[in-house]
């Protein structure tokens, strides 16, 4: 058969060419990976795994720092639904009816109603000798609670660092927040006054609305929620007497819903009774301080900045690995081109190798993330002063980072392969 223009000009269509490149590329890449030095492959995958973890974990911990704080506020204070005083009111009017309504909703697991007022606590009145001696007292928020209800919702007793929680027959006992005690909160600031010398078992004087009563510190609690740690807790019956309250209108109600129940359902059910005329009824997401969301955004941005640096480092690593791999195989690349293998197929082989390293590194990284790191940080949160930091890794967030890593890998794998494949075929074969 004679050679003619038509015969040699058997141009491949773009589509066929793409699939042939993929086919040849995968043929070469697969064998280069499985038959290359195992230690080198393991090292590259290890680097990719670390890069992926760097991308996910750094931002995850930064966001988790704030998320941990949010979780703590929810667990120790607000719970799933918050019922609070309207802006122009001093307490939640019609509280008994609202409480009755809440208790009747089947999706509600438990609830706690709190009376909140300002008051004063004085510690050294027994040892004070002269009138000129400085009074050891602080003004703070005093909460009247039903100890059993509070325990059911917030499990407040787990925050006790000294002493005991209220018993069923306690009278004249208080639980005091650690931020009111110098021993636990040694900050000298007019805004954060503390009692210099008060401990469990000590008698203190509580003054509310001009009424004073001597009570005993039964326990000290410490949480990472300032609102809770700067409070004094008193059983509601004694609070009502001390505050001279004649009605049953409370200031806060925290509601915990049953597992797998959407809090919005409960919120809407309460609102439907007309309770929203007397109180603000909000889910936790609505009630949580807005600055926390801003903080999350800021920390996420910081995490992304750090992660981006990691991404650049990963790209450079992949570039170097593929470049060294390609340059040391320059002769073979020349031979492949010499025998008629398309440069695009050879480049595809290198890109596929890079993708392989990235995918395996990412899979290992995901396994480490979801089966080791996340469970570990959930069980052992990082003890920050204002939060129990957890590792936040959402599926969507992880998928975005996986995609970013893959894109960076494809680019970083393609460029060095292109540089080497572009070189003169004969020079590559002859090693010139």
């Amino acid at each position, binding site marked *: 058969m*004679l*050679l*003619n*223009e038509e015969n*040699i*000009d*058997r*141009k*491949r269509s773009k589509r*066929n060419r793409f699939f*042939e490149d993929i*086919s*040849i590329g995968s*043929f*070469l890449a697969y*064998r*280069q990976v499985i*038959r*290359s030095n195992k230690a080198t492959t393991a090292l590259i995958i290890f680097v990719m795994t670390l890069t992926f973890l760097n991308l996910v974990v750094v931002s995850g911990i930064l966001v988790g720092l704030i998320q941990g704080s949010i979780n703590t506020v929810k667990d120790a204070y607000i719970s799933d639904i918050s019922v609070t005083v309207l802006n122009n009111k001093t307490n939640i009017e019609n509280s008994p009816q609202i409480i009755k309504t809440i208790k009747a909703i089947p999706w509600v697991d438990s609830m706690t109603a709190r009376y909140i007022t300002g008051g004063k606590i004085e510690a050294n009145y027994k040892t004070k000798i002269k009138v000129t001696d400085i009074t050891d007292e602080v003004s703070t928020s005093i909460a009247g609670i039903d100890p059993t209800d509070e325990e059911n919702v917030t499990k407040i007793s787990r925050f006790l660092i000294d002493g005991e929680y209220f018993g069923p027959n306690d009278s004249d006992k208080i639980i005091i927040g650690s931020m009111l005690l110098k021993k636990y909160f040694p900050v000298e600031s007019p805004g954060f006054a503390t009692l210099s010398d008060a401990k469990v078992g000590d008698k203190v004087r509580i003054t509310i609305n001009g009424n004073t009563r001597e009570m005993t510190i039964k326990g000290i609690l410490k949480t990472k929620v300032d609102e809770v740690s700067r409070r004094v807790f008193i059983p509601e019956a004694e609070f009502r007497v001390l505050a001279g309250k004649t009605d049953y209108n409370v200031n806060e109600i925290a509601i915990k819903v049953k597992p797998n129940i959407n809090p919005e359902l409960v919120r809407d059910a309460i609102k439907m009774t007309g309770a929203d005329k007397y109180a603000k009824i909000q889910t936790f997401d609505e009630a949580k301080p807005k600055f926390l969301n801003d903080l999350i955004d800021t920390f996420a941005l910081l995490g992304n900045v750090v992660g981006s640096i990691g991404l650049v480092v990963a790209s450079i690593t992949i570039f170097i690995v593929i470049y060294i791999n390609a340059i040391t195989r320059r*002769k*073979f690349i020349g*031979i*492949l*081109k*010499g*025998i*008629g*293998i*398309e*440069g695009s*197929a050879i480049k595809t082989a290198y890109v596929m190798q890079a993708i392989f390293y990235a995918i395996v590194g990412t899979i290992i990284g995901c396994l480490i993330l979801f089966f080791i790191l996340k469970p570990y940080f959930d069980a052992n949160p990082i003890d920050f002063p204002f939060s129990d930091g957890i590792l936040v890794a959402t599926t969507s967030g992880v998928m975005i980072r996986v995609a970013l890593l893959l894109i960076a890998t494809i680019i970083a794998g393609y460029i060095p392969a292109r540089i080497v494949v572009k070189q003169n*075929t*004969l020079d590559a*074969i002859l090693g010139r």
Partner: protein
Amino acid sequence: MIRANGIIKKFKTGDSELVVLKGLDLHVKKGEFLAITGRSGSGKSTLMYQLSLLDEPNAGEIFVDDVNILKLKNEDKTNFRLRELGFVFQDYALIPELNSIENVMLPLLMQGVDKKEAEKRAVVALEKVGLGDKLINLPSQLSGGQQQRVSIARAIGHNPKIIFADEPTANLDTETAKTVLEVFQELSKEGQTIVMVTHEKEYALVAHRVITLADGVITESIIGNNKYLG
């Protein structure tokens, strides 16, 4: 089959210019086994690179079956090398991560041949060069002679019109070289067009025709006996 007219190839070395091929004319018939020989630096390998489109001459024309292959686009040149030519290099030039069968399959796969069919044809080619029992050996597991035979199998696997062999016996001992030359002779008997470059005159004589290059021109053209002398 191959007609080269006035091939000139120059290399720049600093400010000076080295003319390696000086207006060389050559004609290779279909089914001919041509050996190109000459001393080191005579231009024999350079000539082969021009004929096989691995390099481009500064002047001249090369026709294969009446098509001026130098006028083909780059993509078509690659396609031409893939489909119409087979290469055997001095240092075997096998891809180290591919076993014998995979090395031979590669050009076939690139041509779009189905994987099973490519495998079948690769096995036939390897059996033809006497390596039917080394199908899955990696190059590192083969001797030099065996590697060169895999290289020949790769060159013939896709039934090319012309095989170019650049010093195929240079790295082999006499006995192994003999087996490789026997393979070329077998292929030649089957009508395969072969252009072989060698600096060893004795080996060149296995071809139908032997041309000798010196200073970029053909100084001698003799009939070979197409029979190995050893």
